[in-house]
């Protein structure tokens, strides 16, 4: 849950990138780490196996002044995609404020997407939470590769909740869709935070500056 420290004028938000193995969750964070100016981000921590597969999580802290008078801190986490690491996925989901589901667009691994999506719902249920109650969006990654499913197919497969959520095309390795995804989830999380605190200024959130901006192409 968001944490507000009135003494320090800080608000902390936790955003988790979830999805099937090798879908590009870590690549999203790696791109952000290279593209966001040093003063707006911290070091990136990666807990990976010798084969560069995420073992526990990746972590990247960001800072923004998007909310007047407060420092907004966004803690970005990824989870390990491999099925055997479900316990660690559950731990990383503790207190999550916003979710990015990174789907793999390739036909060859298509069946992994709904499996991981259901796994996300199941793991949230262990905290008595429903996906529909957590701000989330979809990124259909690897759009730069051949043999990929149409966006409409992925939307049909994964965007069938009671409310349709934003979905983005991504080629995270080239940075395509990475900032759009991040800024949208950050704004969605902030809008939810403000709504929960009885201040309905969502209109202003939509008109607001990007929460973070990058310099790399």
């Amino acid at each position, binding site marked *: 849950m968001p944490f507000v420290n009135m003494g320090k004028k800080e608000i902390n938000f*936790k955003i988790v990138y979830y999805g099937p193995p090798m879908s590009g969750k870590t690549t999203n964070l790696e791109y952000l780490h290279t593209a966001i100016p040093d003063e707006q981000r911290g070091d990136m921590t990666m807990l990976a196996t010798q084969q560069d597969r995420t073992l526990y999580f990746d972590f990247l802290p960001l800072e923004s002044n998007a*909310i007047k008078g407060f420092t907004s801190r966004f803690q970005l986490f990824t989870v390990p995609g491999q099925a055997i690491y479900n316990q660690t996925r559950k*731990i*990383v989901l*503790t207190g999550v404020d916003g979710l990015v589901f990174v789907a793999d667009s390739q036909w060859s691994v298509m069946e992994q997407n709904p499996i991981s999506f259901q796994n996300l719902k199941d793991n949230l249920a262990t905290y008595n939470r429903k996906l529909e109650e957590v701000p989330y969006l979809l990124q259909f990654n690897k759009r730069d590769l051949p043999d990929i499913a149409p966006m409409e197919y992925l939307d049909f497969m994964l965007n069938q909740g009671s409310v349709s959520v934003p979905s983005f095309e991504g080629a995270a390795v080239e940075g395509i869709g990475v900032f759009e995804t991040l800024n949208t989830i950050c704004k969605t999380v902030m809008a939810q935070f403000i709504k929960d605190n009885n201040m309905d200024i969502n209109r202003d959130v939509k008109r607001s*500056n990007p929460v973070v901006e990058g310099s790399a192409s």
Partner: protein
Amino acid sequence: MTTQALTTEQNETIDGLIQSILDECNASAVAVCGLDGNILAEKSGVASVADFSLANIVALAIGSFSTTKELAHLIGESSFKSVFQKGKKTGILIYELNDEFIIIMLFGEKTTEGLARLYLKSIAPKIEAVLDDAEGQTAGTAGAGAAFEIKKKENA
């Protein structure tokens, strides 16, 4: 999505308590954080531990403690109260406050480990009391009022 908040006074109380940990234990840095990753308060006694590196240390410490907690469950314990690691020059002590919060203390050669453990044990109930008071507190009840305002586009 509920919100958790500390008032200015609660923040000052916790700041004072962790300052006493820094002073009494000769610690390098101390942080109070939630197992969800939120840093409630932190203080550093050395310039080399910058905010952001502390954020990374906290993320890893939470991961480590959460894993240890799951291990405890697997062998029939409710939790392990602390996790302790010591290197050649620097060590880390993680101490559980309650089910949701921990203290993380980084220390160097000047710290007496036994004393540090005892001191944390004595100070923990005082921090827990503040956190108990803050339970269920929202930004509004913590004194934010109508303070939250999203910055608009500069050219809007």
